[in-house]
């Protein structure tokens, strides 16, 4: 039995407990009987306890290095302070802020929908331009069907996900993924089309900027990324001004233009800056009308945005989302019909060179060239179109997060950043949209077929999903909803087919190729996650820890130095079966190493490999393979890694350990352990002198 002194010494030599648990130390006060207990919290400031576990505080996120702190300060400056999970409810948006974030894509299509429609109609000559008005009314009727259906989606699927969830739940995984792929493409193109259209609105006023439209578009995307990384609420507040300014400015244009027409003072049409003569190259046919309808139906795009982000609204979420959707669609219908009315009554002919927009020509006709209202309209349109990509930035990351939670997209997409925004999705969207914008040279006309086909496909799947639901569940008034969705699905299918056929070679082919690829990718990701889940999931929690067997350990040694000794000592602590291996490039160095090793008192078996071709890593890898073939035990490689004081000193060392580690990363049944040796000042290391040496330690 140990004596008390020995036991005390044992206690004192025990390492401190491996925990952050607080310690209570009693202390005596100044007055007799006054005692108090100090609660020593080893992690005070970095962690606090809550309901029996630790909660990391904001202070624990402060980096220790100067570079890290500077980077953090920059992040805070651009993105704002970090937000905790408890602040999520406060970050939700009201109807008006929601409208500012979600409406831009939908409402902004009024800036180019009329033009797209007129471009097709103009193929039958100037006289055919009057056909635009009935087509516009037909598009508004389809918009009404879509809005009514989307309101049902909001009500039935308040968790968000829109067409993807509707199609997945009612039709099946595959249609759900097609809808998801279409929505993802839609959001990417929302960003690309909106920024391209915004830049065209600028070049309408300043034609010299027409050549720099790709660069301008990408710069705008970067600004939007910064806005959205700050959070949806901030983005809404920042972008509310452009949204409402555009609505007010175009509303004023329509009101004044209509007033002039009503009073008989019909404005004279201005000519496009690029005066290409409009001659009828075809006659008015059903196909032409269908094409014009399909082109103008770009106005419907963006309607899907609200159903995707219902949870982003303040409570009552469903009601607020529905009201926002109604407000948005009402605004769009008014602006679209109003602008088409003015264009047809005034007799505006679209600019063949796409330098000046139809809306710009309407405004010039109504208010006059170089008038203040004209510039105000152009400015608000340009800014609004530039921020119209907002919708893509609020929708894509949320949909990607829903897909990531369903294991169809990488988990990173579900991660919420410092500001509770899905940062990964935002950055990914910006990268893809920016690349597409550059690929198409910033041309809206080239991008619209890509854009619309994806949206209409997602609408079709959503309509089909709802139809299937009504037929399956036969809830109250199912027949009415089924009729609405049958019509909706039919029109959407017609639009998809029309665009796919008529604009196949103008870019629609890309979407038709992309969609199956995206669906395959989503499936592939899901298959991987399911396989990983099956391989890792613990089904039996009563299973004890597996009995450990000491591994066979190989320690590659470059030199017999302090870092090597540290690595060998560690290897010996985990297994008695340790073998060192050294690669020498010349017979002399092999002999020299053998002599030094023999003098060393460590007594660890050593193998020396002479590598006359001077390659270090490959012979080592082959040696490990051969040893492992003979010894079936799990193999552990212990690497001595020299860590210099500064990051830039890394380039002064060959970092063989790092290369070896990278080579062993995917080797099965191999554990690689790094034993870092941190470089310290030589002052406290015996035997080191200030004289320059010729040996390289790494």
């Amino acid at each position, binding site marked *: 039995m140990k004596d008390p002194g020995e036991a005390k010494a044992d206690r004192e030599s025990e390492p401190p407990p491996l925990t952050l648990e*607080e310690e*209570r130390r*009693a*202390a005596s*006060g*100044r*007055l007799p009987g*006054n*005692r*108090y*207990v*100090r*609660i020593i*919290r080893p992690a*005070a*400031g970095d962690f*606090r*306890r*809550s*309901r*029996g576990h630790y909660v990391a*505080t*904001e*202070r624990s996120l402060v980096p220790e290095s100067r570079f890290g702190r500077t980077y953090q300060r920059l992040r805070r400056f651009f993105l704002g302070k970090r937000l905790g999970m408890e602040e999520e409810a406060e970050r939700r948006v009201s109807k008006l802020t929601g409208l500012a974030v979600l409406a831009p894509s939908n409402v902004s299509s009024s800036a180019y929908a009329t033009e797209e429609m007129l471009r097709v109609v103009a193929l039958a000559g100037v006289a055919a331009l009057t056909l635009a008005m009935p087509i516009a009314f037909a598009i508004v009727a389809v918009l009404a069907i879509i809005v009514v259906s989307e309101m049902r989606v909001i009500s039935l699927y308040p968790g968000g996900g829109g067409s993807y969830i509707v199609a997945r739940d009612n039709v099946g995984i595959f249609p759900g993924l097609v809808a998801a792929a279409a929505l993802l493409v839609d959001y990417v193109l929302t960003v690309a089309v909106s920024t391209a259209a915004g830049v065209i609105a600028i070049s309408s006023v300043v034609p010299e900027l027409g050549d720099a439209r790709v660069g301008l578009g990408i710069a705008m995307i970067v600004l939007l990324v910064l806005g959205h990384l700050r959070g949806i609420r901030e983005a809404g507040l920042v972008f509310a001004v452009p949204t409402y300014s555009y609505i007010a400015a175009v509303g004023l244009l329509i009101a004044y233009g209509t007033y002039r027409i009503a009073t008989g003072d019909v404005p004279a049409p201005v000519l496009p800056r690029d005066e290409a003569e409009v001659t009828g190259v075809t006659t008015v046919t059903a196909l032409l009308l269908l094409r014009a309808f399909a082109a103008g139906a770009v106005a419907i795009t963006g309607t899907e945005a609200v159903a995707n982000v219902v949870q982003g609204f303040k409570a009552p979420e469903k009601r607020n989302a529905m009201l926002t959707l109604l407000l948005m669609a009402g605004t769009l219908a008014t602006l679209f019909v109003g602008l088409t009315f003015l264009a047809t009554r005034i007799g505006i002919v679209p600019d063949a060179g796409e330098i000046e927009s139809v809306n710009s020509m309407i405004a010039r006709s109504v208010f006059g060239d170089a008038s203040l209202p004209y510039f105000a309209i152009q400015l608000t349109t340009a800014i609004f179109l530039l921020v119209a990509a907002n919708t893509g930035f609020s929708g894509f990351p949320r949909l990607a997060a829903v897909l990531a939670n369903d294991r169809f997209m990488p988990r990173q997409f579900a991660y919420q950043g410092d500001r509770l925004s899905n940062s990964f999705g935002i950055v990914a969207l910006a990268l893809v949209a920016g690349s597409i914008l550059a690929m198409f040279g910033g041309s809206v006309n080239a991008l619209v077929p890509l854009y619309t086909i994806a949206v209409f496909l997602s609408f079709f799947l959503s309509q089909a999903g709802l139809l299937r639901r009504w037929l399956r569940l036969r809830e109250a008034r199912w027949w009415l909803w089924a009729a609405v969705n049958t019509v909706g699905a039919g029109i959407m299918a017609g639009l998809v087919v029309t665009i796919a056929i008529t604009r196949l070679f103008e870019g629609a082919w890309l979407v038709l190729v992309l969609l199956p690829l995206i669906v395959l990718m989503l499936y592939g990701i899901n298959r991987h996650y399911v396989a990983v889940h099956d391989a890792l999931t613990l089904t039996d929690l009563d299973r004890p820890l597996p009995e450990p067997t000491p591994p066979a350990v190989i320690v590659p040694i470059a030199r017999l130095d302090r870092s090597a000794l540290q690595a060998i000592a560690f290897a010996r602590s985990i297994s008695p079966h340790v073998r060192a291996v050294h690669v020498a490039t010349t017979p002399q160095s092999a002999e020299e190493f053998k002599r030094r090793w023999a003098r060393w008192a460590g007594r660890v078996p050593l193998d020396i490999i002479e590598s006359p071709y001077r390659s270090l890593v490959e012979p080592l890898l082959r040696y490990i393979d051969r040893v492992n073939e003979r010894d079936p035990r799990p193999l552990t490689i212990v690497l001595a890694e020299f860590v210099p004081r500064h990051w830039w000193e890394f380039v002064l060392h060959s970092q063989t350990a790092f290369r070896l580690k990278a080579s062993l990363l995917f080797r099965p049944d191999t554990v690689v352990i790094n034993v870092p040796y941190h470089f310290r000042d030589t002052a406290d290391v015996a035997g080191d002198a200030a004289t320059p040496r010729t040996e390289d330690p790494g």
Partner: protein
Amino acid sequence: MQVKLVLAPLAGTAVDPDVVRVATTLAKAWKAQVLLIHVIEVRWNMPLDAVLEADTERGEVILDEATRLAEQAGVQVESELVQAREASAAIIDTARDRGADLIVLGMPYRRRLGRTYVGKTIQSVYVGAHCAVLAYRQEETR
């Protein structure tokens, strides 16, 4: 007056942010350090070192929030959680043990029987502390 350590006891009341602000302003001027302390009062029917889960967690939240404020003000700050039978005795003893030069006390604005009420902790620290004591009373609530 040479002040190196300012002790600021915090009770988790509305006056806490003001106490931290006063303590950090003074500490900054004197280039002193701030010690934030929260005392958990243990009832007599329990052992003094009893583990009071909820009170400890509340104390940590109070101290974390105050630490964050003090750090934002740019002073060197430390925090301490203490259990005692009476808060005043623990504050006085901690001030003495840690060599505090000034204690900044916060008084929430309260009235009893038509008069401004000063709690017994404030009074006891005022009377018993070895160092200078500054009491900050919250402004009258309207």
